[in-house]
């Protein structure tokens, strides 16, 4: 798999498409099966009112990118989806066979601190957006950023059969403190802890693909990573700058992990309690 840690320009889909195409060439040359871009990689993240204006450009760009996919290759990227007029979503497209195979949309739209996604986007529907996609070699699921800060999306995808979860992210750097190891932001340690916990609890590979670089006041810290079902970090991209990292994974790790854990155990009563709170 390949992690394409880009720095997109806000609202400039055409320019961003060029960056995507460059990465696709690399992926093709390295015969990478699964290539993933960050959240809202085509239009940029901090769109504000531009969110209403980029959907058409995104659709055109997606079709161009999808046509470039070659046999066996799957490519995931972030875009603004507008299936019905006035209802836009923060979505990921899954491409292969020269076309867009499917999409999924973000379930948890953050609206705290610097985030204001729910002002613009309609949340994804778990009943239709939790989907398993297949390549020649594996089954995988796709989630978007904040969805990893809740237990359910990854849990459901793993139980639906995903061996790999791609998490498209746009995580901005924030927080300065002495308590963290030098050079590591609190948000970075938090993300890595989350990824390991999800990987361990759900016995899946997790590929976290973050943005890098500035967007208005924010700055995305990059540091994309692949974590194994045993919680090991198999690959890390550079921090703060654009990067491309490709890594081989062994899907037998998933099989083994699920035999030597309580993966099979699920108790619906917990969710019944939660529902009634």
């Amino acid at each position, binding site marked *: 798999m390949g992690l394409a840690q880009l720095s997109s320009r*806000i609202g400039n889909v055409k320019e961003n498409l060029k960056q995507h195409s460059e990465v696709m060439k690399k992926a093709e040359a390295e015969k990478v099966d699964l290539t993933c871009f960050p959240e809202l990689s085509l239009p940029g993240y901090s*769109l504000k009112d*531009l969110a209403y204006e980029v959907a058409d450009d995104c659709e055109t760009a997606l079709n161009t990118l999808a046509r470039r996919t070659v046999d066996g290759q799957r490519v995931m990227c972030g875009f603004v989806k507008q299936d019905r007029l006035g209802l836009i979503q923060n979505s990921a497209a899954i491409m292969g066979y020269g076309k867009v195979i499917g999409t999924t949309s973000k379930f948890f739209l953050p609206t705290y601190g610097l985030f204001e996604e729910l002002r613009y986007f309609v949340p994804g529907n778990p009943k239709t957006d939790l989907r398993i996609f297949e390549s020649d070699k594996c089954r995988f699921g796709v989630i978007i950023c904040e969805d990893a800060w809740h237990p359910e999306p990854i849990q459901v995808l793993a139980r639906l059969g995903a061996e790999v979860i791609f998490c498209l992210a746009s995580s901005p750097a924030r927080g*300065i403190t002495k308590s963290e190891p030098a050079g590591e932001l609190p948000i970075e340690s938090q993300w890595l802890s989350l990824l390991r916990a999800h990987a361990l609890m759900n016995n899946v590979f997790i590929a976290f693909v973050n943005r890098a670089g500035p967007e*208005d006041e924010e700055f995305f810290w990059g540091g994309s990573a692949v974590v194994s079902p045993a919680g090991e970090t198999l690959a890390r991209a550079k921090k703060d700058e654009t990067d491309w990292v490709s890594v081989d994974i062994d899907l037998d790790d998933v099989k083994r992990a699920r035999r030597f854990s309580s993966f099979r155990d699920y108790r619906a009563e917990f969710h019944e309690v939660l529902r009634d709170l």
Partner: protein
Amino acid sequence: MTPELEEIVPRELQINTAPVASYLTRRLASYITEYAGRRKAIVGLSGGVDSAVVAYLSAKAVGSENTYLYLLPSSSTPEEDMEDAKAVVEMLRIPEKNCRLVSIDKHTTELASSLGKRQDRLTVANIKARVRMILLHGFASMLAGLVVGTGDKSEITIGYFTKFGDGGADLFPIGDLYKSQVRQIAAEAGLPERIYRKQPSPALWEGQSAESELGIDYPTLDRILYRRFDLWRDEESIAADLEVPLSKIERVVEQVRRTQHKRHPPEIFKLSFRSHGSDWRYPREWG
């Protein structure tokens, strides 16, 4: 950290200065060159810690050859401040042609006299800050550079700056660092000790001292602001924690409230469906 530095940088505000400085350098470089399409940083150097750190970051970001430092003293500027400013110029190896010393007295006097026979101290002080702003933007315009502001988070938060004066810059790279943290960066970057240990002062009139004017020292001010606004704590618990009279905490918080207008663009009264400020919400970087 040395015990001497601990005195001016409260423990809870201490940062890992190397990654913070490198982050700010990177941001400054990308803002000036990629976002604004310019190459040069224009900084007004006062001899204080804020402008020394901004000059240091600018030189790292766009290079000494693209950093332009202006010493703009008035009759109320202490001689040692200009000496300290010159030490910064030397330390950062800024080419001589990139530095100028311009006294602002004649401009200030002329402008102030246009206001009438008698002017109060604060009005003249603000004229000084605005004259500096005009000159810095003039230099920036001639050199196709950006005016890199020197405001820190402590001063921005309590509104201790002149609107359209030192508040009138193109960007504020250290605007999210409290004064104590700026001092820590200065100390660990090896800037002259006298600069980061001295009593901060805008030097807008003779003998002006920020701490006596505010009635509080910067480490305490920073600890109050950090607790009230970063940690969302209530005023009573802050007073108890810092062993500072509640009235002092209330005065600081009141000053933050009173100066909120200084941290916003001027108000536009809403008439249309789409007004700048409330529902015209395009990103700064646009395409």
